[in-house]
């Protein structure tokens, strides 16, 4: 019973601490700061990255498709030659 009471007291105390700290947070106000450094994000770099990514992605894709086409072309020629040889026999 005593243990349960202690746990209950601890919980109530924790709830008070939470309530007080959140109250403090709510009580804070936005302070006006003079001459603060403003975060500047360079637009040119973002635009360059966006366009660059698209072109690189498309070129890499074209390269892989072209490689696949060249490879299958070679295989088809080779297999046709084998089929011709086998049918001649």
């Amino acid at each position, binding site marked *: 019973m005593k243990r349960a009471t202690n746990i209950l007291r601890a919980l109530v105390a924790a709830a008070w601490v939470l309530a007080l700290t959140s109250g403090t947070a709510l009580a804070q106000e936005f302070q006006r700061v003079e001459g603060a450094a403003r975060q500047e994000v360079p*637009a040119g770099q*973002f*635009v360059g990255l*966006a366009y660059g990514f698209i072109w690189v992605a498309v070129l890499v*894709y074209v390269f892989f498709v072209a490689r696949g*086409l060249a490879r299958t072309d070679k*295989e088809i020629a080779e*297999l046709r030659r084998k*089929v011709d040889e086998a049918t001649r026999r």
Partner: protein
Amino acid sequence: MRSSVGIGFVVAVLVAAAGFLIVPPLILGAPLEPVMGFVQKIFYVHVPGATMLFLSTFAAAGGSIAFLFKGSEAGDRVAAAAAELGVLFGACTLVTGPLWGRKAWGVWWQWDARLTSSLLLFLMLIAYMLARRYGGPAGRKLSAALALFAAVDVPLVYKSVDIWRTVHPKTTVVPSLDPRMRPAFWSSFLLITILWGVLLALRVRLERQRALVAALRLDTDDLLEAGR
């Protein structure tokens, strides 16, 4: 066979060359957006890229319907090619969007309806490719079903900005575009659409050739077996 590959490449190179020559001056010459400034130039590739993601998904779903209900091998090849292009243009959209957002909103990503549903669409197309590659004998049918689910997501992605409150601009941006920005936007849109068509044709050809290789291998094996 080799000459047809050459034609595809010539077209692709011409399209890319035209893109480099015609579209960038139009984009650079378009007026700056008063609030976002220079970073708004990403719009000219972001929106066409996202549209190609939608178009790819619909093409994949169309091909998958032909494959599932009519057993069309050509439909399956178009679906596989289109899904791959969907991943390509989805990646472009999901990279250019955060680059624009970082400057315009101050954050790379927001878990809002448009961005999250776009990411889901992209993941569904990746799931299509994984199911097709590793799904075993039923992989092609499983991936075709996934393409249908992905197509259902497209209208949701498009209308999400009108249905839910999001940080992303609404669908009214393009219709209400400043007339001085329209030549840059529509020329970029046309160029990227042509590029998509060329890439789709090349990729479908690759699928067709792979199927031919598989058929020829079977023929060769049969003939060699019979010769013994």
